[in-house]
Each structure stands twice: as structure tokens, then as C-alpha cells.
């Protein structure tokens, strides 16, 4: 009797893709180590230098995760824009809330 078989053709490993993934992993690893170096190397008096450095390195890591791991870098332009433009609201909220935090600090503590 003839057996019914589902023919599933397994394609060979895409080596170029895997190489990209390994490259991104290495970048994330190295950037995290740099963050550690800054965490212990830069004194807490330089608060704003620390804040700016850490946030820039975090955004760098976020870029690689979103663009390569989440594949957004390879989607088409309208899709990228639909997902990236709304982040402007977050940027707006960051500025008003940090400003507000400073105002509360001046009012309650720094009178």
C-alpha cells in the first residue's frame, strides 16, 4: 500500500544570516562591557556625563536588537516609518517629565 507522505523540503542553513546574528551578539556583548567600564570608571559627580553616555550606548544596543533581531531594518520604508515616528511622543514625555522632576526638586528640597 502506498504511504501518504508530506514532502517537506528543508533548505540549507543561511550562513550569511547566522554570521550577521553572531556579529550583532558580539556588538551587544562589547557595548555592555563598555557600559560596565563606564559604570565603575566615571565618578558619580559627573552625573550628566554618565546619563548621556549610558543612554547613547543603550540606544545603540536597541538599534541593533530592533534592526537585526526584530528584522525591522529589512522591512519596507512605510512600515519602518509607521513604527518609528510614534516614538516622538515618548521623546516629548521624557523632556516634560525631566523638566517637571527638576521643578519639584527645586520646590521641595532645594528651596
Amino acid at each position, binding site marked *: 500500500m502506498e504511504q501518504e507522505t508530506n514532502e517537506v523540503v528543508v533548505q540549507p542553513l543561511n550562513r550569511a544570516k547566522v554570521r550577521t546574528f553572531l556579529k550583532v551578539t558580539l556588538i551587544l556583548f562589547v557595548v555592555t562591557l563598555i557600559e560596565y567600564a563606564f559604570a565603575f570608571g566615571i565618578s558619580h559627580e559627573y552625573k550628566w556625563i554618565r546619563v548621556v553616555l549610558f543612554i547613547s550606548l543603550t540606544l545603540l544596543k536597541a538599534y541593533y*536588537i530592533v534592526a537585526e533581531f526584530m528584522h525591522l531594518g529589512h522591512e519596507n520604508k512605510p512600515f519602518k516609518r509607521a513604527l518609528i515616528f510614534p516614538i516622538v511622543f*515618548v521623546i516629548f514625555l521624557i523632556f516634560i517629565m*525631566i523638566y517637571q*522632576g527638576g521643578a*519639584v526638586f527645586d520646590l521641595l528640597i532645594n528651596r
Partner: protein
Amino acid sequence: MSETAVAIDEEKKDLWGGGVSPFKASYGKIMMWFFLLSDAFTFSALLITYGYIRFSHPAYSGAVEDFTFSAEWWPIPEKVFEAMPFMHGVSMPLIFVGIMTFVLILSSVTMVMAVEAGQRMDRKGVEKWMLWTILGGVAFLGCQAWEWNHFIHGIQQADGSFFHASLSSNPYGPPPFASLFFFITGFHGFHVFSGVVFNFIIFFQAMTGKFERTGHYEMVEKVGLYWHFVDLVWVFVFTFFYLV
């Protein structure tokens, strides 16, 4: 008659005129992305609240060696997060959270490998890499459970009292410090937990051959997006709680 038909066909070639997919992605993936965008707003709001409350308290600016815990100023992370399992009483600042970060990043890497295997219709590969991803997620959750337990149970001091934190009070700094820590890492941890559950469901369905019958492994890509998002949020939580 035939001329109108041609006119409609011409119109449909417009990207936003209907009849084509302007994003060139499947419905499920687009919706997962939009859900993640809304979730990104939620996490942004939480982390910005952390920034707001932190900036409305004085910052510590002296030397790290002279630092003492006080409700007067915001604590510095390398003094709060210095515990390590099996290393009782040894100060290992930020080492444990570094391990947690690498566990989550590596589970993201195994996830892209699972997605890649799915695109090649390689069922064995999907099963293997999904299992590694689930393992990474469970390891991360275990680490977080240990860290929470360490903070809630606390350290017994010489006079017999406990040095421990709760939502309402904590010995490390101003009261909102611990409430924000528990709320934000807890919300992220719950995302990791649901991610592990989704990954397990997809692993199970791959194992039973569901995707071979469907003819594609797109569900692996969708849960993959969710899983990478959880990793992405952790990158930010890590920066704001453990580094800045």
C-alpha cells in the same frame, strides 16, 4: 465598459489605493508590531516616571567608598545591587545582573536561530532552538526570583533586625525607590513569563507538526518579535536601574 475596468486596475497600482499590502508584511506580523509599539509606550511611561521621581530627589555625588544608605538621596546602583547567590556577605557589585543580561541576550540569539530554522522549514532546528530559548527565559526568571527574594527577605544584621525592602519602605533610599524597582522589574518579569508561555506553546505546536501542516513557521517569527521586545525592554531597565 472595458475602459472602466482598465481604469480601476490602474488605480489599484497606487500603494495606498487598496488591493495591495503597503507594508509588504503579513497581517499577524503587523499587528504584533503595533501591539509591541503600544507596549513600548507603557514601558516608556513607567521608565519616564522613574526618571521624574529620581530627578525630584537629591542625587548622591560623593565618593563611592563613603556612600551610606539614606532616605536623603537616591541610592547608587553599585551599592544596592551587589549580592550574588552562594556568595553571602561578599560584595560583587552588578555581577549578578550582568549574568542575567547575558542570559536574556543569548536567549534572544537562540530565538533568531529558531526563526531562521523556521524559514528553512527545518522542524528539528526550530524544536532545538525554541527549547534553548525557553531554557534561557526560565533561567532569567529564576535569577529574578532570587533577586526579589534577596530584597524582600533581606539580610539579618548584628542586632537581629532585617535589612529588607517592601513596596512601602526600604533601607536603601527614598520609599519610591523600592516601589519603582518592584513595579518595573515585576512588570518586565511578567512579560518574560508570558513570553516563556508563548514560546512553549509554539514549541509544542512545532513538535506536533502543526506548522508543517500549515506550510509555514510564521508563528515562530511572531513570538520571536515578542521575545526580542522583552529583551529590548530589559536593555533599558538595565540602564536605568543598574547603571545610571
